Every structure is written in structure tokens, then in C-alpha cells.
């Protein structure tokens, strides 16, 4: 067959030579991710007689995804319910308070691998496509997946995105991914897969590649993925929980659309409210006053993101009218920040650093905005309702976010580089 990456992975899992676009396939899943399985455990009670999940090794719960510590008893009790549920149903992997964002952990801890099929209850589950895994979000029905170990997919057409060239200084992977998102649009990949390739991508770290696979969900995509290269295979060594045979696309695979981008001329980008795909050149919003800046989240909590932020913040101070919150993606990322002296740079600048978790992306734990406030951040989403009423969220690179925190308003970060 001449299949795209997603067609090849689905065909292999379905035990077929070929799958057809639009066909419904029911396949075994290699990993199931959940951050807050409370209501799925309540489903179990309604079903009655649930002995265990299908395979406790393959179900991963990141209870610390949204909270690093519960801020009230309601949250604390909800977490107790999750811990007890994991024990009762034989779920082996529970990442508790302070361990980090589930999407980074899934990759870092080897719960997914090239050619694997993963589903997750969080819409940003598309993240794990960065290592050549088919990762797709589904929420309500993860109850059924926990019992059967299988999920259904409608075989998607694939968009191919080719990224070539070397980006200018001060233009990061987030800027490029944000630009791709603006080209495809908020529903341009609805029920479709997006496959990323090209020399620009191959030079990026695994965590920076994840920004592309993860933001695919903001295009409506079923999954965003890329072929595993030598970097991925080396990364998986000693990490993957299972032996695997990588899956690659065929040379003559056919795509519904091909988007070719030369990143060399790209300027810093920003997503303006109220939608992640609402991307502009950052220069168009220069001068916008901000109250809070956030470096972290599943698209900005990686070690490269922290290094970029430190490049701007080294020897500078956060503007007195701004709260800068920095949140590492995982404990391992935090440890690396310590080793590289980044924590010292951030503390000297007057930034706050919290334990690893989602941060003020979903405004659940800390860092809520007040009425009429504006925030800039490296996190994935800026929708109305996400951060209270009458608030504005801009999304940008770690460079641009750190620079705005220093200046007190959105500014071209290259003036500090």
C-alpha cells in the first residue's frame, strides 16, 4: 500500500494491508492518558461489577496535571477519589502532585513510542505525535477504552506540512507552529491528520517538535504526527516501556493537501483573542499593556522554552506592574533548569516559579486573572471563558512573553537579544 503515517499505523493495528479513508476501524490502544478520571470512575459505579481496567500498565493518570497542590478541600477530596480509584481498578501509573504536565510525562517517561496508538481524555493528547505515535483525544468514551483496551477511529485524510529553512534569531518553534495554525485555521484539519516534515523540524528537539503535534488539536485535527528520525530513536532508548518497530510513511503516500513553508522570512507571531488560530505578526499588537505573563504550559514548559526566556531575562527585571509566572513542564525539566542556573536568572529578575503543572492556562490552581486584565503566555489556548469574563489572553513564544514581562507591554523581543 502507499499509506501516510497515520494510515500505516492504523492498518498495522487493525491487522490489515490497507485502510481506506472514511472507514471506521476498531483497534487496540497502547496507552490511555487521563488527568482527571473522576467521572469515569463514577461511570464504573453506574456500570457495576468493574473488576479492573484492561491493562493497568497502559493506563496513565496525571492527577498533578491541573494542580500542584489542591487549594481547597473540594479539590483535595476529588484527588483522594482519583487515588483510590487508581488503586481499586489496578491503574499502575499515577503521576501525583508536583510531577508535571501529563503530555510531557507521557513522552519523557516512555509511555508512548513510535508507531504506538495512544488516546487521551485531554484535547492536547495529539502531543505524542512528536515521536511518531498516533495520539488522538477522546474524553467521555475513555470509560469504554479502560474496559476494552480498544478505540475506534474514522480513517482520516492527511495534510502534509513541509517546514524548510532556518528561522531568524528570536523566532522560535512556537512562532512557526503558530503560523502553521493560522494557515490551516481553527477547523482546517477537522477529522484529518496533519503530518509534519522538513529540515527545520529535524533540527528541533523532541520537546520543541511537540508544539507542532500538540497545536494540531487547535486546527480541529484528529492527530498531528511526524516520522521518527534518529533523534527520536536515540531518545527512546532505555525510555520506551515496550520494544517497538517504528512505522514510516510510504514515499508515494497521497495527501489531501500539502503546505510548504520556508521559515527563513518568518517574523515573531502572536495569537490574539479569542482563538489560538487568530495569529498576527507580533508587531501589529506592540504596545498592548499586560498584567500577567506566563512561561509554561504544554507548549512552553520545555527546557528550550526556559532557555529562551532566560536569554531575555538574564540581567533584567520584570516590570513592576507585571506578574511573571514560570512553570516547568516536569520535575526533570525543573532539575535541568537548576543545573543550568536558569532558576537563579528567573529569581533575580523577580519572576515567580511554581512546581510543575499546567499553570495559569486553565486557571484552576493559581494565577487567575482579574476583571479586565490581560495576559500573555506560551500556553496553547486563549478562548473566551477560559480565564474568567472580560479578560484577554495573547499567546506567543517564550522570547516574546519574557520580553513583554520586562517591558510591561507587548514588544518585539529582538530588542533584548
Amino acid at each position: 500500500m502507499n499509506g501516510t503515517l497515520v494510515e500505516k499505523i492504523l492498518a498495522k493495528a487493525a491487522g490489515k494491508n490497507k485502510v481506506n479513508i472514511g472507514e471506521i476501524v476498531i483497534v487496540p490502544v497502547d496507552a490511555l492518558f487521563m488527568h482527571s478520571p473522576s467521572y469515569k470512575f463514577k461511570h464504573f459505579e453506574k456500570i457495576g461489577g468493574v473488576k479492573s481496567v484492561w491493562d493497568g500498565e497502559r493506563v496513565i493518570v496525571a492527577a498533578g496535571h491541573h494542580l500542584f497542590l489542591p487549594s481547597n478541600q473540594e479539590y483535595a477530596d476529588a484527588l483522594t477519589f482519583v487515588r483510590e480509584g487508581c488503586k481499586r481498578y489496578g491503574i499502575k501509573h499515577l503521576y501525583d502532585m508536583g510531577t508535571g504536565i501529563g503530555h510531557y510525562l507521557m513522552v519523557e517517561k516512555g509511555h508512548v513510542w513510535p508507531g504506538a496508538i495512544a488516546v487521551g481524555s485531554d484535547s492536547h493528547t495529539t502531543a505524542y505525535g512528536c515521536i511518531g505515535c498516533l495520539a488522538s483525544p477522546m474524553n467521555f468514551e475513555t470509560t469504554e477504552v479502560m474496559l476494552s483496551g480498544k478505540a475506534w477511529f474514522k480513517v482520516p485524510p492527511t495534510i502534509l506540512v513541509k517546514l524548510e529553512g532556518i528561522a531568524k534569531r528570536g523566532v522560535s518553534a512556537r512562532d512557526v507552529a503558530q503560523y502553521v495554525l493560522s494557515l490551516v485555521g481553527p477547523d482546517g484539519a477537522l477529522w484529518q491528520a496533519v503530518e509534519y516534515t522538513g529540515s527545520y523540524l529535524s533540527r528541533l528537539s523532541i520537546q520543541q517538535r511537540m508544539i507542532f503535534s500538540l497545536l494540531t488539536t487547535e486546527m480541529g485535527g484528529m492527530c498531528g504526527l511526524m516520522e521518527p528520525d534518529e533523534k527520536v530513536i536515540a531518545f527512546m532508548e532505555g525510555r520506551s516501556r515496550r520494544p517497538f518497530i517504528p512505522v514510516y510513511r510510504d514515499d508515494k503516500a497521497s495527501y489531501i493537501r500539502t503546505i510548504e513553508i520556508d521559515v527563513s522570512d518568518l517574523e515573531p507571531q502572536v495569537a490574539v483573542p479569542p482563538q489560538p488560530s487568530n495569529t498576527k505578526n507580533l508587531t501589529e499588537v506592540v504596545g498592548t499593556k499586560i498584567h500577567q505573563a506566563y512561561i509554561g504550559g504544554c507548549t512552553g514548559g520545555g527546557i528550550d522554552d526556559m532557555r529562551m526566556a532566560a536569554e531575555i531575562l538574564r540581567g533584567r527585571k520584570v516590570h513592576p506592574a507585571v506578574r511573571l509566572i514560570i512553570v516547568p513542564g516536569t520535575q526533570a525539566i525543573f532539575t535541568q533548569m537548576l543545573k543550568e542556573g536558569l532558576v537563579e536568572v528567573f529569581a533575580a529578575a523577580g519572576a515567580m516559579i511554581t512546581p510543575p503543572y499546567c499553570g495559569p492556562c486553565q486557571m484552576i490552581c493559581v494565577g487567575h486573572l482579574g476583571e479586565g486584565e490581560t495576559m500573555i503566555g506560551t500556553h496553547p489556548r486563549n478562548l473566551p471563558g477560559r480565564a474568567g469574563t472580560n479578560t484577554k489572553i495573547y499567546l506567543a513564544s517564550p522570547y516574546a512573553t519574557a520580553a513583554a514581562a520586562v517591558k510591561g507591554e507587548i514588544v518585539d523581543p529582538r530588542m533584548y537579544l
Partner: protein
Amino acid sequence: MASSRGKAWTFGDHINTEAILASGKEENWEAAQKTVLAYYDPEFPLKVQPGDFIVAGRNFGTSSGRPAGEILKAKGIRAIICESAGMIFYRNTWNMALPVLQCPGILAKVKKGDELEVDVEAGTIKILKTGEVLQAEETPWILLEIYRKGGMLGYIKARRHEYETLEQF
């Protein structure tokens, strides 16, 4: 299954799940009932009636995978008819036995308050003021099967013997 009649509430493109069930309100049902879709139509949470329909534009229920359909179901919405729906919302909501029909062209033909007659199984939407009948896109067979069992929980219970993870009563 028989068709049902009700009034339409109309919404535009890219209505996200935050606006249906906001972050942090998943466990606070009372607050969620007051704010559902209020960002786009403040009348909706106050005046929606059981049996009403939502008619929306492209990409309805986009973004977060939270089970936002549950609040619409609690409000008595009988079905959602949209130009297209966010994938997770679409899967979630059918699994709650609340149908989501994708019917390109619907939004231009229906105004807020118009009466509709919807046949979920047939995928047809009749606009009573004009008598025009629109045909929705085909729903994946597996979702119709789940819907016929009353949603995912009924689907699991009806096939209990297929699960090694369940005790057999």
C-alpha cells in the same frame, strides 16, 4: 425512532466548549446551568426549553474535550444540528445519547425561534415555516449503535458479556 419537534437556538461558527461548560464549573452544576452559552446568547440559559434544538455554524464544540454536552442535555436540548462539529465534542456527545447532526447549509436557513422537526435516525431536519427538508451527513455506524443503546453506559451494559474486565451477573 420517531421524529421530534422543537424550537431552534442559533449560534455562529467555532463556539468552543469553554463557552458551554467553563473551566472549573464541571463540578458546579448550578453555576454551569446559569452560564451555558451565555457568552454568545445571554437569553439561552434563562429561556431554553426541554425539547429545543441548537442550530450552529462550523466547528461547534471545538477545543477542550470536557463533557460539555452534559450541560446541554441537562437543559433538555434534544439534538444539535450544525454545519460541522469539533471532533471530541461530536464523539463525546453522541456517547451521551445526545445527537449531533452535521448538516452543511443549515445555519443560513434557520433563524432563532424557528420550529424544526428532526428525525435523528434518518438524519433529516424539516424547517416547518418553509416545509424544506434537509439531509444531514451520515453518522458513523458505531455512534448510531451506541445512541440506540441509550449512550455509552447502555452500550457497555448491553454487551456486558464481551468484557473480561466486568463481572458477569
